[in-house]
Protein backbone atom coordinates (compact mmCIF):
# COMPACT_ATOMS: atom_id res chain seq x y z
CA UNK A 1 0.00 0.00 0.00
CA UNK A 2 2.84 2.32 0.84
CA UNK A 3 4.17 2.21 -2.74
CA UNK A 4 0.95 3.29 -4.41
CA UNK A 5 0.62 6.76 -5.84
CA UNK A 6 -1.94 8.91 -4.06
CA UNK A 7 -5.27 9.72 -5.67
CA UNK A 8 -4.78 13.48 -5.48
CA UNK A 9 -2.38 13.18 -8.42
CA UNK A 10 -4.97 11.78 -10.83
CA UNK A 11 -5.83 15.19 -12.38
CA UNK A 12 -9.55 14.42 -12.38
CA UNK A 13 -10.70 17.38 -10.25
CA UNK A 14 -11.83 20.89 -11.16
CA UNK A 15 -9.30 23.23 -12.78
CA UNK A 16 -6.83 20.37 -13.03
CA UNK A 17 -4.81 22.20 -15.67
CA UNK A 18 -3.66 24.68 -13.01
CA UNK A 19 -4.67 23.26 -9.64
CA UNK A 20 -2.93 19.99 -8.75
CA UNK A 21 -4.60 19.26 -5.44
CA UNK A 22 -6.60 20.54 -2.47
CA UNK A 23 -5.88 19.62 1.11
CA UNK A 24 -7.62 20.11 4.45
CA UNK A 25 -5.94 19.51 7.77
CA UNK A 26 -7.64 19.48 11.17
CA UNK A 27 -5.50 19.68 14.33
CA UNK A 28 -6.98 17.95 17.38
CA UNK A 29 -5.80 16.98 20.86
CA UNK A 30 -7.13 14.66 23.53
CA UNK A 31 -8.14 16.60 26.63
CA UNK A 32 -6.80 14.33 29.37
CA UNK A 33 -3.30 13.92 27.91
CA UNK A 34 -0.32 16.25 27.84
CA UNK A 35 0.34 17.48 24.32
CA UNK A 36 2.80 15.35 22.28
CA UNK A 37 6.00 17.36 22.93
CA UNK A 38 5.48 16.80 26.66
CA UNK A 39 4.37 13.18 26.51
CA UNK A 40 6.55 10.27 27.51
CA UNK A 41 7.44 7.73 24.83
CA UNK A 42 5.29 5.24 26.70
CA UNK A 43 2.22 7.50 26.64
CA UNK A 44 2.75 8.18 22.95
CA UNK A 45 2.82 4.46 22.23
CA UNK A 46 -0.33 4.00 24.29
CA UNK A 47 -2.11 6.60 22.17
CA UNK A 48 -0.92 4.90 18.97
CA UNK A 49 -2.17 1.55 20.24
CA UNK A 50 -5.50 3.02 21.26
CA UNK A 51 -5.87 4.49 17.75
CA UNK A 52 -5.13 1.04 16.39
CA UNK A 53 -8.07 -0.32 18.37
CA UNK A 54 -10.30 2.59 17.42
CA UNK A 55 -9.82 2.20 13.67
CA UNK A 56 -10.49 -1.52 13.85
CA UNK A 57 -13.80 -1.06 15.69
CA UNK A 58 -16.83 -1.55 13.48
CA UNK A 59 -18.50 1.72 14.51
CA UNK A 60 -15.45 3.69 13.39
CA UNK A 61 -15.04 1.76 10.17
CA UNK A 62 -18.69 2.34 9.34
CA UNK A 63 -18.01 6.09 9.24
CA UNK A 64 -14.60 6.22 7.62
CA UNK A 65 -14.11 3.02 5.67
CA UNK A 66 -11.17 0.75 6.23
CA UNK A 67 -8.02 2.40 7.53
CA UNK A 68 -4.59 1.08 8.31
CA UNK A 69 -2.18 2.11 11.05
CA UNK A 70 1.53 2.41 10.28
CA UNK A 71 4.00 2.93 13.11
CA UNK A 72 6.84 5.04 11.80
CA UNK A 73 9.33 3.15 14.00
CA UNK A 74 8.49 -0.03 12.11
CA UNK A 75 8.95 1.41 8.60
CA UNK A 76 12.18 1.58 6.62
CA UNK A 77 13.83 4.96 6.19
CA UNK A 78 12.95 4.87 2.51
CA UNK A 79 9.26 4.22 3.25
CA UNK A 80 9.19 7.13 5.68
CA UNK A 81 10.80 9.38 3.10
CA UNK A 82 8.27 8.31 0.50
CA UNK A 83 5.47 9.27 2.93
CA UNK A 84 7.04 12.72 3.14
CA UNK A 85 7.27 13.05 -0.63
CA UNK A 86 3.62 12.09 -0.93
CA UNK A 87 2.92 14.94 1.50
CA UNK A 88 1.44 12.55 4.02
CA UNK A 89 3.89 13.24 6.82
CA UNK A 90 5.79 16.42 7.68
CA UNK A 91 9.54 16.98 7.66
CA UNK A 92 9.35 17.27 11.44
CA UNK A 93 7.84 13.80 11.59
CA UNK A 94 10.45 12.34 9.29
CA UNK A 95 13.27 13.72 11.44
CA UNK A 96 11.69 12.64 14.73
CA UNK A 97 9.81 9.53 13.79
CA UNK A 98 9.96 7.70 17.11
CA UNK A 99 6.62 6.90 18.76
CA UNK A 100 4.70 8.44 15.92
CA UNK A 101 2.21 6.93 13.55
CA UNK A 102 0.00 7.50 10.57
CA UNK A 103 -3.42 6.09 9.85
CA UNK A 104 -4.09 5.76 6.13
CA UNK A 105 -7.32 5.28 4.23
CA UNK A 106 -7.23 2.84 1.35
CA UNK A 107 -6.52 5.37 -1.39
CA UNK A 108 -4.38 7.56 0.92
CA UNK A 109 -6.66 10.53 0.33
CA UNK A 110 -7.55 10.50 4.02
CA UNK A 111 -5.02 10.11 6.81
CA UNK A 112 -4.49 10.84 10.49
CA UNK A 113 -1.07 11.72 11.84
CA UNK A 114 -0.55 10.54 15.41
CA UNK A 115 1.73 12.41 17.84
CA UNK A 116 2.99 15.01 15.44
CA UNK A 117 2.75 18.54 16.86
CA UNK A 118 -0.76 17.60 18.01
CA UNK A 119 -2.20 14.24 19.02
CA UNK A 120 -4.18 13.98 15.81
CA UNK A 121 -3.86 15.73 12.51
CA UNK A 122 -6.61 14.67 10.18
CA UNK A 123 -5.71 15.23 6.53
CA UNK A 124 -7.80 14.94 3.46
CA UNK A 125 -6.53 15.34 -0.09
CA UNK A 126 -8.49 15.81 -3.29
CA UNK A 127 -7.42 16.15 -6.86
CA UNK A 128 -7.89 19.59 -8.43
CA UNK A 129 -9.75 22.44 -6.74
CA UNK A 130 -12.09 20.73 -4.33
CA UNK A 131 -11.74 22.05 -0.80
CA UNK A 132 -15.40 21.37 -0.12
CA UNK A 133 -15.23 17.59 -0.48
CA UNK A 134 -11.89 17.55 1.31
CA UNK A 135 -13.52 19.30 4.27
CA UNK A 136 -16.53 16.96 4.25
CA UNK A 137 -14.27 13.91 4.41
CA UNK A 138 -11.99 15.36 7.10
CA UNK A 139 -15.06 16.32 9.12
CA UNK A 140 -16.42 12.81 8.88
CA UNK A 141 -13.21 11.35 10.28
CA UNK A 142 -13.19 14.05 12.96
CA UNK A 143 -16.76 13.18 13.98
CA UNK A 144 -15.87 9.51 14.13
CA UNK A 145 -12.76 10.13 16.25
CA UNK A 146 -14.71 12.39 18.56
CA UNK A 147 -16.85 9.45 19.62
CA UNK A 148 -13.74 7.76 20.99
CA UNK A 149 -11.76 10.67 22.38
CA UNK A 150 -12.79 13.73 24.32
CA UNK A 151 -11.09 16.66 22.59
CA UNK A 152 -9.20 19.51 24.21
CA UNK A 153 -11.72 22.23 23.54
CA UNK A 154 -12.11 25.67 25.09
CA UNK A 155 -15.41 27.51 25.08
CA UNK A 156 -13.76 30.73 23.98
CA UNK A 157 -10.71 29.57 22.02
CA UNK A 158 -12.13 26.47 20.36
CA UNK A 159 -9.97 23.45 19.59
CA UNK A 160 -6.72 23.71 21.52
CA UNK A 161 -3.45 22.97 19.73
CA UNK A 162 0.22 22.94 20.73
CA UNK A 163 0.90 25.99 18.64
CA UNK A 164 -1.42 28.93 19.35
CA UNK A 165 -1.47 29.79 15.64
CA UNK A 166 -3.73 26.77 15.09
CA UNK A 167 -6.28 27.25 17.87
CA UNK A 168 -9.93 27.86 17.09
CA UNK A 169 -10.95 25.71 14.17
CA UNK A 170 -7.56 23.99 13.92
CA UNK A 171 -8.17 23.98 10.19
CA UNK A 172 -5.61 24.57 7.45
CA UNK A 173 -6.72 24.54 3.83
CA UNK A 174 -4.04 24.42 1.18
CA UNK A 175 -4.17 24.34 -2.57
CA UNK A 176 -1.28 23.26 -4.76
CA UNK A 177 -1.05 25.19 -8.02
CA UNK A 178 1.11 25.21 -11.12
CA UNK A 179 1.92 28.84 -11.90
CA UNK A 180 4.63 28.94 -14.59
CA UNK A 181 3.45 32.09 -16.42
CA UNK A 182 3.06 34.14 -13.25
CA UNK A 183 6.50 33.09 -12.04
CA UNK A 184 8.07 33.89 -15.43
CA UNK A 185 6.50 37.34 -15.64
CA UNK A 186 7.12 38.20 -11.99
CA UNK A 187 3.41 38.54 -11.28
CA UNK A 188 3.69 36.41 -8.16
CA UNK A 189 5.05 39.24 -6.02
CA UNK A 190 1.82 41.24 -6.28
CA UNK A 191 -0.21 38.14 -5.60
CA UNK A 192 1.88 37.31 -2.56
CA UNK A 193 1.33 40.81 -1.19
CA UNK A 194 -2.42 40.87 -1.69
CA UNK A 195 -2.83 37.32 -0.36
CA UNK A 196 -0.91 38.25 2.75
CA UNK A 197 -3.09 41.23 3.51
CA UNK A 198 -6.12 38.92 3.38
CA UNK A 199 -4.57 36.34 5.70
CA UNK A 200 -3.36 33.84 3.11
CA UNK A 201 0.18 32.65 2.39
CA UNK A 202 1.82 31.39 -0.79
CA UNK A 203 4.98 29.31 -0.63
CA UNK A 204 6.99 26.95 -2.79
CA UNK A 205 5.46 23.50 -2.85
CA UNK A 206 8.63 21.71 -1.84
CA UNK A 207 8.91 23.77 1.33
CA UNK A 208 10.70 26.92 2.41
CA UNK A 209 12.92 28.43 -0.24
CA UNK A 210 11.78 26.10 -3.00
CA UNK A 211 10.08 28.90 -4.93
CA UNK A 212 10.23 28.33 -8.61
CA UNK A 213 10.96 24.62 -8.25
CA UNK A 214 8.77 23.25 -11.04
CA UNK A 215 6.63 26.41 -10.64
CA UNK A 216 4.58 24.59 -8.01
CA UNK A 217 3.14 26.69 -5.23
CA UNK A 218 0.95 26.14 -2.24
CA UNK A 219 -1.56 28.71 -1.02
CA UNK A 220 -3.08 28.33 2.44
CA UNK A 221 -4.92 30.20 5.18
CA UNK A 222 -2.89 31.75 7.96
CA UNK A 223 -5.58 32.32 10.59
CA UNK A 224 -7.65 29.66 12.24
CA UNK A 225 -9.65 31.47 14.91
CA UNK A 226 -12.66 33.75 14.72
CA UNK A 227 -13.93 32.64 11.33
CA UNK A 228 -16.00 29.53 10.58
CA UNK A 229 -14.38 26.68 8.66
CA UNK A 230 -16.52 27.10 5.56
CA UNK A 231 -15.99 30.86 5.53
CA UNK A 232 -12.21 30.39 5.58
CA UNK A 233 -12.69 27.87 2.77
CA UNK A 234 -14.83 30.18 0.64
CA UNK A 235 -12.36 33.02 1.16
CA UNK A 236 -9.48 30.89 -0.01
CA UNK A 237 -11.46 29.47 -2.92
CA UNK A 238 -12.26 32.98 -4.11
CA UNK A 239 -8.59 33.94 -4.02
CA UNK A 240 -7.58 30.73 -5.81
CA UNK A 241 -10.04 31.47 -8.59
CA UNK A 242 -8.56 34.95 -8.96
CA UNK A 243 -5.06 33.48 -9.20
CA UNK A 244 -6.28 31.00 -11.85
CA UNK A 245 -7.66 33.87 -13.95
CA UNK A 246 -4.40 35.81 -13.62
CA UNK A 247 -2.29 32.78 -14.51
CA UNK A 248 -4.42 32.10 -17.60
CA UNK A 249 -4.19 35.72 -18.69
CA UNK A 250 -0.40 35.71 -18.27
CA UNK A 251 -0.18 32.51 -20.31
CA UNK A 252 -2.19 34.08 -23.12
CA UNK A 253 -0.08 37.22 -23.15
CA UNK A 254 3.17 35.25 -23.05
CA UNK A 255 2.18 33.04 -25.96
CA UNK A 256 0.85 35.97 -27.97
CA UNK A 257 3.90 38.17 -27.49
CA UNK A 258 6.60 35.49 -27.46
CA UNK A 259 5.10 32.69 -29.51
CA UNK A 260 8.36 31.25 -30.85
CA UNK A 261 10.37 31.78 -27.67
CA UNK A 262 7.72 29.89 -25.67
CA UNK A 263 7.55 27.03 -28.17
CA UNK A 264 11.33 26.90 -28.20
CA UNK A 265 11.79 26.56 -24.42
CA UNK A 266 8.96 24.02 -24.16
CA UNK A 267 10.25 21.75 -26.93
CA UNK A 268 13.80 22.11 -25.60
CA UNK A 269 12.50 20.94 -22.22
CA UNK A 270 11.06 17.89 -23.95
CA UNK A 271 14.35 17.33 -25.77
CA UNK A 272 16.20 17.70 -22.52
CA UNK A 273 14.20 14.88 -20.96
CA UNK A 274 14.58 12.80 -24.12
CA UNK A 275 18.36 13.10 -24.40
CA UNK A 276 19.67 13.73 -20.89
CA UNK A 277 21.88 11.08 -19.34
CA UNK A 278 21.98 12.58 -15.85
CA UNK A 279 19.01 14.40 -14.35
CA UNK A 280 18.39 16.02 -10.96
CA UNK A 281 14.93 16.31 -9.40
CA UNK A 282 14.98 20.06 -9.86
CA UNK A 283 15.95 20.00 -13.54
CA UNK A 284 13.43 17.25 -14.20
CA UNK A 285 10.62 19.14 -12.44
CA UNK A 286 11.42 22.38 -14.26
CA UNK A 287 11.20 20.55 -17.59
CA UNK A 288 7.94 18.89 -16.57
CA UNK A 289 6.60 22.33 -15.65
CA UNK A 290 7.29 23.64 -19.16
CA UNK A 291 5.80 20.55 -20.81
CA UNK A 292 2.72 20.93 -18.61
CA UNK A 293 2.39 24.51 -19.83
CA UNK A 294 2.75 23.29 -23.42
CA UNK A 295 0.03 20.66 -22.93
CA UNK A 296 -2.34 23.30 -21.58
CA UNK A 297 -1.55 25.61 -24.54
CA UNK A 298 -2.30 22.79 -26.99
CA UNK A 299 1.24 22.00 -28.16
CA UNK A 300 1.66 18.45 -29.42
CA UNK A 301 4.48 16.07 -28.60
CA UNK A 302 5.63 12.75 -30.12
CA UNK A 303 3.23 10.93 -27.85
CA UNK A 304 0.10 12.26 -26.20
CA UNK A 305 0.92 13.57 -22.71
CA UNK A 306 -1.74 14.11 -20.07
CA UNK A 307 -1.82 15.86 -16.69
CA UNK A 308 -2.00 12.60 -14.75
CA UNK A 309 1.36 11.46 -16.14
CA UNK A 310 2.87 14.86 -15.38
CA UNK A 311 1.40 14.92 -11.88
CA UNK A 312 2.75 11.50 -11.00
CA UNK A 313 6.27 12.83 -11.60
CA UNK A 314 5.79 15.39 -8.80
CA UNK A 315 6.13 12.46 -6.42
CA UNK A 316 8.10 9.91 -8.48
CA UNK A 317 10.93 12.28 -9.48
CA UNK A 318 11.89 12.79 -5.85
CA UNK A 319 14.54 10.56 -4.24
CA UNK A 320 12.30 8.05 -2.43
CA UNK A 321 9.70 8.12 -5.20
CA UNK A 322 12.34 7.22 -7.76
CA UNK A 323 13.71 4.37 -5.65
CA UNK A 324 10.23 3.06 -5.03
CA UNK A 325 9.51 3.19 -8.78
CA UNK A 326 12.58 1.11 -9.58
CA UNK A 327 12.11 -1.03 -6.50
CA UNK A 328 15.64 -0.71 -5.14
CA UNK A 329 17.65 1.67 -3.02
CA UNK A 330 20.13 3.86 -4.87
CA UNK A 331 22.92 6.32 -4.13
CA UNK A 332 22.38 9.95 -5.19
CA UNK A 333 24.62 9.33 -8.25
CA UNK A 334 22.64 6.24 -9.27
CA UNK A 335 19.43 8.21 -8.86
CA UNK A 336 20.65 10.91 -11.23
CA UNK A 337 21.48 8.23 -13.78
CA UNK A 338 18.13 6.49 -13.44
CA UNK A 339 15.98 9.61 -13.41
CA UNK A 340 15.98 10.18 -17.21
CA UNK A 341 14.61 6.65 -17.67
CA UNK A 342 11.83 7.37 -15.18
CA UNK A 343 10.77 10.50 -17.06
CA UNK A 344 10.95 8.78 -20.43
CA UNK A 345 8.93 5.80 -19.22
CA UNK A 346 6.24 7.87 -17.55
CA UNK A 347 5.89 10.32 -20.46
CA UNK A 348 6.44 7.58 -23.09
CA UNK A 349 9.26 9.59 -24.65
CA UNK A 350 11.21 7.78 -27.37
CA UNK A 351 8.68 4.97 -27.81
Amino acid sequence: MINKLPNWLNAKGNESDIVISSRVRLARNVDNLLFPHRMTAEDKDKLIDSIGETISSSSFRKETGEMKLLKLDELSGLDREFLLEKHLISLNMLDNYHNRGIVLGLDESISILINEEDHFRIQSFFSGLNLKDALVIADRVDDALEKFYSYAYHEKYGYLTSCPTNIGTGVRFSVMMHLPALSMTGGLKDIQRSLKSDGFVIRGFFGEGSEGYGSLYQISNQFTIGVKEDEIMLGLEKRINEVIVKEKKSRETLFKQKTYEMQDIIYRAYGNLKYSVLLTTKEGMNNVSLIRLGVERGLTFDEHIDYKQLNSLIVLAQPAGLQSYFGKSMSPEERERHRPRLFKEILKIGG
Partner: protein
Amino acid sequence: MICQICKKNEATICMVKMTNNKKDTVYICPTCASQMEDQLIGSINQLLNPMFETFFKAGNTLEIDNNQICPTCGQTKREWQESNTLNCKDCAQFIDSEVVHNGKIPKNNKEELYVINLIKEKESHLKILIAEEKYEEAAIIRDEIKDLKGVSIDDK
Protein backbone atom coordinates in the same frame (compact mmCIF):
# COMPACT_ATOMS: atom_id res chain seq x y z
CA MET B 1 33.91 33.66 58.58
CA ILE B 2 34.11 35.10 62.07
CA CYS B 3 32.93 38.62 62.81
CA GLN B 4 35.89 41.00 62.56
CA ILE B 5 34.53 43.11 65.45
CA CYS B 6 33.47 40.67 68.21
CA LYS B 7 35.51 37.80 66.76
CA LYS B 8 32.91 35.37 68.12
CA ASN B 9 29.85 35.19 65.97
CA GLU B 10 29.53 34.14 62.37
CA ALA B 11 29.80 37.15 60.07
CA THR B 12 26.82 37.38 57.77
CA ILE B 13 27.08 41.01 56.70
CA CYS B 14 29.73 42.39 54.45
CA MET B 15 30.33 46.12 54.62
CA VAL B 16 32.25 47.88 51.90
CA LYS B 17 33.43 51.40 52.59
CA MET B 18 34.77 53.55 49.81
CA THR B 19 37.03 56.45 50.81
CA ASN B 20 38.97 58.32 48.15
CA ASN B 21 38.78 55.35 45.78
CA LYS B 22 40.19 53.10 48.49
CA LYS B 23 37.99 50.07 49.26
CA ASP B 24 37.66 48.76 52.84
CA THR B 25 35.79 45.53 53.38
CA VAL B 26 34.59 44.53 56.86
CA TYR B 27 32.80 41.31 57.71
CA ILE B 28 30.58 41.55 60.79
CA CYS B 29 27.87 39.63 62.62
CA PRO B 30 24.28 40.89 62.93
CA THR B 31 24.74 41.57 66.69
CA CYS B 32 27.70 43.84 66.10
CA ALA B 33 25.97 45.45 63.16
CA SER B 34 22.97 46.33 65.33
CA GLN B 35 25.28 47.71 68.02
CA MET B 36 27.09 49.98 65.67
CA GLU B 37 25.58 53.44 66.11
CA ASP B 38 27.83 54.82 63.55
CA GLN B 39 26.61 57.06 60.74
CA LEU B 40 27.67 54.37 58.39
CA ILE B 41 24.95 52.04 59.66
CA GLY B 42 22.42 54.80 59.25
CA SER B 43 23.39 55.09 55.64
CA ILE B 44 23.29 51.30 55.28
CA ASN B 45 19.75 51.27 56.59
CA GLN B 46 18.86 53.98 54.18
CA LEU B 47 20.29 51.83 51.50
CA LEU B 48 18.82 48.57 52.67
CA ASN B 49 15.28 49.66 53.41
CA PRO B 50 14.31 50.39 49.84
CA MET B 51 15.99 47.13 48.87
CA PHE B 52 13.89 45.18 51.34
CA GLU B 53 10.82 46.94 50.10
CA THR B 54 11.51 46.00 46.53
CA PHE B 55 12.38 42.51 47.64
CA PHE B 56 9.02 42.06 49.32
CA LYS B 57 7.26 43.65 46.41
CA ALA B 58 9.02 41.21 44.14
CA GLY B 59 7.89 38.50 46.53
CA ASN B 60 4.34 39.61 45.96
CA THR B 61 4.61 39.43 42.21
CA LEU B 62 6.27 36.06 42.64
CA GLU B 63 3.13 34.93 44.39
CA ILE B 64 0.97 36.20 41.55
CA ASP B 65 3.23 34.37 39.08
CA ASN B 66 2.83 31.25 41.16
CA ASN B 67 -0.90 31.51 40.75
CA GLN B 68 -0.35 31.52 37.02
CA ILE B 69 1.14 28.09 36.86
CA CYS B 70 -0.83 25.67 34.75
CA PRO B 71 -2.37 23.24 37.29
CA THR B 72 -2.11 20.31 34.89
CA CYS B 73 1.36 20.48 33.33
CA GLY B 74 3.12 22.99 35.58
CA GLN B 75 4.05 25.45 32.85
CA THR B 76 4.44 28.94 34.35
CA LYS B 77 3.28 32.11 32.70
CA ARG B 78 6.88 33.12 32.15
CA GLU B 79 7.69 29.82 30.44
CA TRP B 80 4.61 30.28 28.28
CA GLN B 81 5.75 33.72 27.23
CA GLU B 82 8.97 32.19 25.95
CA SER B 83 7.70 28.91 24.52
CA ASN B 84 4.39 30.22 23.16
CA THR B 85 3.33 26.59 23.22
CA LEU B 86 0.44 24.87 24.94
CA ASN B 87 1.59 21.79 26.84
CA CYS B 88 -1.92 20.69 27.74
CA LYS B 89 -5.50 21.86 27.52
CA ASP B 90 -5.27 23.94 30.71
CA CYS B 91 -2.47 26.10 29.29
CA ALA B 92 -5.38 27.81 27.51
CA GLN B 93 -5.54 30.07 30.58
CA PHE B 94 -2.45 31.86 29.25
CA ILE B 95 -3.97 32.67 25.88
CA ASP B 96 -4.68 36.34 25.52
CA SER B 97 -6.79 36.70 22.44
CA GLU B 98 -9.55 39.12 21.64
CA VAL B 99 -10.67 36.88 18.82
CA VAL B 100 -13.06 34.16 19.87
CA HIS B 101 -13.68 30.80 18.23
CA ASN B 102 -16.57 30.69 15.84
CA GLY B 103 -16.79 27.32 14.20
CA LYS B 104 -17.18 23.62 14.81
CA ILE B 105 -17.96 22.41 18.33
CA PRO B 106 -17.28 18.82 19.37
CA LYS B 107 -20.65 17.13 19.61
CA ASN B 108 -20.02 14.83 22.52
CA ASN B 109 -18.33 17.66 24.36
CA LYS B 110 -21.52 19.68 24.04
CA GLU B 111 -23.64 16.77 25.23
CA GLU B 112 -21.35 16.20 28.15
CA LEU B 113 -21.54 19.83 29.18
CA TYR B 114 -25.28 19.61 28.92
CA VAL B 115 -25.39 16.59 31.19
CA ILE B 116 -23.04 18.17 33.71
CA ASN B 117 -25.16 21.32 33.84
CA LEU B 118 -28.29 19.25 34.19
CA ILE B 119 -26.80 17.36 37.12
CA LYS B 120 -25.81 20.62 38.79
CA GLU B 121 -29.31 21.99 38.35
CA LYS B 122 -30.91 18.89 39.75
CA GLU B 123 -28.52 18.77 42.68
CA SER B 124 -29.43 22.28 43.77
CA HIS B 125 -33.09 21.42 43.32
CA LEU B 126 -32.52 18.35 45.48
CA LYS B 127 -31.04 20.48 48.28
CA ILE B 128 -34.07 22.73 48.26
CA LEU B 129 -36.44 19.77 48.36
CA ILE B 130 -34.57 18.25 51.30
CA ALA B 131 -34.57 21.59 53.11
CA GLU B 132 -38.31 21.75 52.54
CA GLU B 133 -38.58 18.15 53.77
CA LYS B 134 -40.24 16.99 50.52
CA TYR B 135 -38.57 13.61 50.70
CA GLU B 136 -40.72 11.77 48.18
CA GLU B 137 -39.95 14.27 45.41
CA ALA B 138 -36.32 14.38 46.53
CA ALA B 139 -36.03 10.61 46.10
CA ILE B 140 -37.20 10.91 42.49
CA ILE B 141 -34.67 13.68 41.75
CA ARG B 142 -31.94 11.69 43.49
CA ASP B 143 -32.60 8.72 41.20
CA GLU B 144 -32.58 10.98 38.15
CA ILE B 145 -29.17 12.36 39.16
CA LYS B 146 -27.91 8.84 39.65
CA ASP B 147 -29.06 7.93 36.12
CA LEU B 148 -27.50 11.03 34.60
CA LYS B 149 -24.17 10.39 36.31
CA GLY B 150 -24.26 6.85 34.99
CA VAL B 151 -24.81 8.15 31.46
CA SER B 152 -21.96 10.62 31.54
CA ILE B 153 -19.58 7.98 32.88
CA ASP B 154 -20.68 5.44 30.26
CA ASP B 155 -20.10 8.00 27.54
CA LYS B 156 -16.49 8.40 28.51
